[in-house]
């Protein structure tokens, strides 16, 4: 590796990185300056939080935050419980139809509920769950991806540990809880991070299901807010945009390594 080659690589890397953060930097710039500076880049431009305050007051973002928080929490907890049970069944039990059922579960990696919006909406209407947070969550509470991911980990747990616990008289659920779950902690972290960011960002399905402030998550709220293009200034819209992605972004900056590793682990298995 020559020094020249190396310098060229670093230059390329830095230029691409600059290009990649440019949109974000620009959004931050407009959000923290008065709207006169939207397109004027002077270092002496006064900093302000007024755009954030205006956005916060112009739409019920506090409610949207709460809705998203409840939604994501419900989904992740349900996913953990349901996927863990199913993963244990697939990993350590023998029963007729297991392999067929498992391939049906894997089919969900290809055909996701996201695509079946027409029929799922009809189903939700018949259940009377349109415009509820439960309605947004239901199609996602069990995920084929989660079952697959956790099953892969459970299969690496030595059978001897399972047997030992069984001899001591522990039931299946106790074994699952005391032996398997603690050993799979890193996978739960990965899956949790991936799932949280996925459902925090989900838009189309919540858009279809919700039609009131009480249920709308942040993404839908943001789109409603920025669709009112009459009079809302760009600086305010950008402030709202950053605000809604803020918690995830901050979490990402704090736990960068875990995030990257989580997405990696979730993808490779």
């Amino acid at each position, binding site marked *: 590796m020559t020094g020249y080659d190396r310098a060229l690589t670093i230059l390329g890397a830095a230029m691409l990185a600059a290009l990649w953060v440019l949109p974000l930097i620009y959004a931050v710039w407009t959000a923290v300056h008065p709207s006169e500076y939207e397109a004027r880049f002077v270092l002496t431009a006064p900093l302000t939080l007024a755009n954030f305050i205006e956005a916060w007051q112009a739409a019920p973002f506090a409610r949207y935050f709460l809705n998203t928080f409840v939604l994501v929490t419900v989904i992740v907890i349900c996913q953990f419980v*349901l996927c863990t049970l199913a993963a244990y069944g697939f990993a350590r039990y023998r029963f007729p139809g297991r392999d067929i059922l498992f391939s049906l579960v894997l089919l969900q990696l290809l055909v996701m509920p996201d695509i079946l919006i*027409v029929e799922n909406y009809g189903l939700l209407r018949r259940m009377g769950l349109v415009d509820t947070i439960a309605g947004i969550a239901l199609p996602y509470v069990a995920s084929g991806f989660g079952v697959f991911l956790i099953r892969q980990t459970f299969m690496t747990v030595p059978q001897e540990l399972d047997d030992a616990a069984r001899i001591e008289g522990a039931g299946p659920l106790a074994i699952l809880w005391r032996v398997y779950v603690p050993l799979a902690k890193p996978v739960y972290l990965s899956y949790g991070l991936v799932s949280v960011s996925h459902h925090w960002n989900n838009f189309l399905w919540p858009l279809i299901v919700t039609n009131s402030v009480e249920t709308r998550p942040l993404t839908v709220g943001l789109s409603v807010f920025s669709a009112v293009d009459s009079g809302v200034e760009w600086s305010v819209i950008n402030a709202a945009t950053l605000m809604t992605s803020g918690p995830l*972004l901050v979490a990402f900056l704090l736990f960068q390594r875990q995030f990257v590793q989580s997405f990696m682990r979730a993808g490779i298995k």
Partner: protein
Amino acid sequence: MLTRQWVHGWLLLMPALTFIFLFTHIPAVVTVWNSFFSTARGRRPSVFVGLDNYERLINDPVFWKVLSNNLWFALGTIPTSIALAIAMALFVNRQFLGRSLVRMAYFTPTVLPLIAVANIWLFFYTPGFGLVDQILGAFDHGQTNLLGNPDTALAAIVVVSVWKEAGFFMIFYLAALQAIPPQLAEAARIEGAGGWTIFRRITFPLMMPTTLFVSINAVINSFRLVDHIFILTAGGPDNASSLLLYYIYETSFRFWDTAYGATLTVAMLALLCLLAIGQFFLFDRRVHYK
């Protein structure tokens, strides 16, 4: 004893499978069933219409338009983001000062909601005022309207998707790169191979499983993710940037023609299956290193 194992196994699966079947498999089957019926309107109930919806599908110019859009969208997004992802991974795989900063820059768009991403880019594309026009203006280029022009709207959306996805794919390539034994490159270098040859003959072929995985992911995403269309163009102008799922949404939830929406969904399902099968066979012969 055996039957008890069966019962326990079944009980463990039951809760998850109930929800998975309820919201994925059953709806998929019912969608196919519904595509043979008409949409109930007012006092007219839904009736069996045979293949009428499919006849309409074949004669629907908008369907073919969004289908070809989806194809161009996939062709525009996937190879570019894979190439960029590989470049990013190669960059970040080296040791240098500020490496983690660079990696963070690449990966950050992945964490943002697609809706937020679209908002940011909409501002970029604003005619006369956005950053794109300001940069072009510095070169004495007139005002542009990339999103409002049927010739450029889809390309503008492709750019947004590439920006969003490349960093995500990078991490898979990064993992793949770290799994390649460094001795291979060393041996090749002793034999006098240059950097490009090493990449083309060793690194790239060894990353083929990753490329397969990433491209399947990317194809599914190109059908599944249409959030940015809502913000950027609403499918316009004249369906120039509409994608299949967006058209399904419009048909079913704006015009409430759910039967035709179901028919479009069947087309989408068929396409996804076809792609999965095709990709499997296409790549299967080239991926030796599983």
